[in-house]
């Protein structure tokens, strides 16, 4: 019996060790930093190093200084309409961008999935290829394209659509932000869509046609519903990071575009208000946890 017992215990431990790895990872790199930020968000600003109070030196400290913790920063967020409108504006921009990404990405993924098998891998490579260049450089490149004296203006002037003195004013507007976001996030939309569409059995469409369904209709009753897991995955993969996007609105949107990422940056670096920017980050996380939970439920079903 004893011998049998040890034989069973080892694989049992090995299994748990294996399962523990991702949990340990999340604990170390997600939960622990989150708790630190959450703690800072309950502190008060101070002209000190680090720039907040109280600073906890030991566990004993934690107990005595507990009364110094405050929810004031969160209350402050509700009082200033700046934060409120930055959150809303971020959600709106993320939503519109995600819809645009879906509209642009779906035909691309569909075309890739329908391409001859020998071409498909090359097309997937083409979608991933921009990642070889730094994200920052690619966004900077858009400035060169979009600015009033940029490539678009030059091209339109050359074609005679614009007069010699006329310019395109897209740079430093929300439109530029949308262009930048759709460009940057397109692979994250296309790849999950492609994975879902590529799996689709073409005989299902033949069966639909055989039963009297014309091709345009069978797209909506067969192809699209069966690609929904890919649509959901792509949308969340784009929506969640876009809400917190900082670089693109900062470089392309100018002062006109209000996004929570920029607000957070300003609080942190311009105002040196760590507690308030931490509170902004915590609220942002809570806002995003809701779609993440929906996303994970959807994944479980798929």
């Amino acid at each position, binding site marked *: 019996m004893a011998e049998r017992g040890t034989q069973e215990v080892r694989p049992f431990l090995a299994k748990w060790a294996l399962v523990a790895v991702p949990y340990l990872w999340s604990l170390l790199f997600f939960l622990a930093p989150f708790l630190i930020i959450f703690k800072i968000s309950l502190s008060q600003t101070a002209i000190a190093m680090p720039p907040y109070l109280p600073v906890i030196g030991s566990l004993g400290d934690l107990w005595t200084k507990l009364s110094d913790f405050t929810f004031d920063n969160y209350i402050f967020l509700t009082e200033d309409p700046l934060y409120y409108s930055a959150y809303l504006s971020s959600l709106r921009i993320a939503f519109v961008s995600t819809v645009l990404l879906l509209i642009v990405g779906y035909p691309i993924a569909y075309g890739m999935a329908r391409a001859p098998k020998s071409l498909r891998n090359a097309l997937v490579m083409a979608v991933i290829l921009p990642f070889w260049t730094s994200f920052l450089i690619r966004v900077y490149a858009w400035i060169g394209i979009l600015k009033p004296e940029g490539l678009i203006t030059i091209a339109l002037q050359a074609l005679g659509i614009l007069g010699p003195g006329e310019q395109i004013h897209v740079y430093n507007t929300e439109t530029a932000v949308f262009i930048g976001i759709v460009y940057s996030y397109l692979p994250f939309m296309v790849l999950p869509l492609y994975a879902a569409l590529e799996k689709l059995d073409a005989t299902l469409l*033949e*069966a639909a*046609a055989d039963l*009297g*369904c014309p*091709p345009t209709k069978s797209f909506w009753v067969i192809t699209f*519903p069966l690609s929904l897991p890919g649509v959901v995955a792509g949308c969340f993969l784009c929506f969640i990071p876009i809400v917190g996007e900082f670089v693109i609105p900062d470089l392309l949107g100018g002062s006109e575009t209000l996004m929570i990422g920029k607000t957070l940056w300003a609080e942190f670096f311009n105002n040196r208000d760590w507690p308030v920017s931490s509170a902004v980050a915590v609220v942002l996380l809570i806002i995003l946890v809701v779609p993440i939970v929906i996303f994970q439920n959807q994944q479980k079903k798929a």
Partner: protein
Amino acid sequence: MIEAVGPIKRKFAPWDDPTLKPFIRFENVTKRFGDFTAVDNLTLDIYEREFFALLGPSGCGKTTLMRMLAGFEQPTEGRILLDGKDLSGIPPYKRPVNMMFQSYALFPHMTVEGNIAFGLKQEGMDTSNINTRVAEMLELVKLEKFAKRKPHQLSGGQRQRVALARSLAKRPKVLLLDEPLGALDKKLREETQFELMDIQMELGMTFLIVTHDQEEAMTVSDRIAVMNHGVIAQIGTASQIYEQPASRYVADFVGDINLIDGTVSAVEGGVATLHCAGVDATIVAEAGPGEVAVGAEAGFAIRPEKVQISLEAPPAGTPNVLSGEVWDIGYLGDISVYRVRLAGGSIVKATVANLTRIVERPITWEDKVYLTWPADAGVILLK
């Protein structure tokens, strides 16, 4: 002329009635995929209410032929007529034929009911009629309890039934079955074959089945077309194909066959004499189709079950006798297969029905045996 295959089929032979028009007509149909000719100048008539089988090895063009009828492929040359109407240019979704796919192709995001109702919805049938028809179909395939399930919650046999119900729901003029029972185990396949026949009789539709399984083709169909390399090798009832094969290919593809090669030494009144130097024997048998003439290279073809095996030498002067020794014995329960090695080294198979519960075989390994057969049991086919 026509052998009775079963009681229901005895009188059903529209292909012998010259006044009847064919329901489906393939007229000089050719289909090429690049350099490859899948179907080669093929003409075929299928009659209304017929259960017709296209039988052949994979790559013989049988599936391509069916897919052209469904509208998924267009003939390179020739045309296909359905009920006298040319089908060319009509897309699949406007053809009055439905297909049951080999992979079943059930819509995974719809319930059993939803799958069966799909075709009816495309027709624009109203909801109450759809519900009635779906209920009928579920009853027909005995899946009433599974109406709300999704395909992945069903067994292979149940999915096969859903696919059948879905393809029948629109009451198509022609039902196409592409290897419909290929994924089922042997017992279920046999049961389903008989159910298919019953359903076809009950609904009075024309069924066209594609299969590589000769037993399946012979069981279900009124007529079989044996195909090879894009052409039809022979069309006929199961018994015609089996008993009067038109060529060596057909004889070899359908059922088990012994072929003994030789040279024709005499032909008289449809009876040929074959001199088989390899096995040192002379065989007299009916001359098959084609130019069986003196001097032609030919083969004597006989089914193993028609060969009688005996330990005793037949009386002297009996024609068509081969002798050899028992090389191998295969006991299959219902029958035993004896592989007899002839003088020249070639093997002839003879099957014996095990009519009694034999414990010890009268004929065993290395016994010297004599093989005989009735005069009309075999046929001489050209090479």
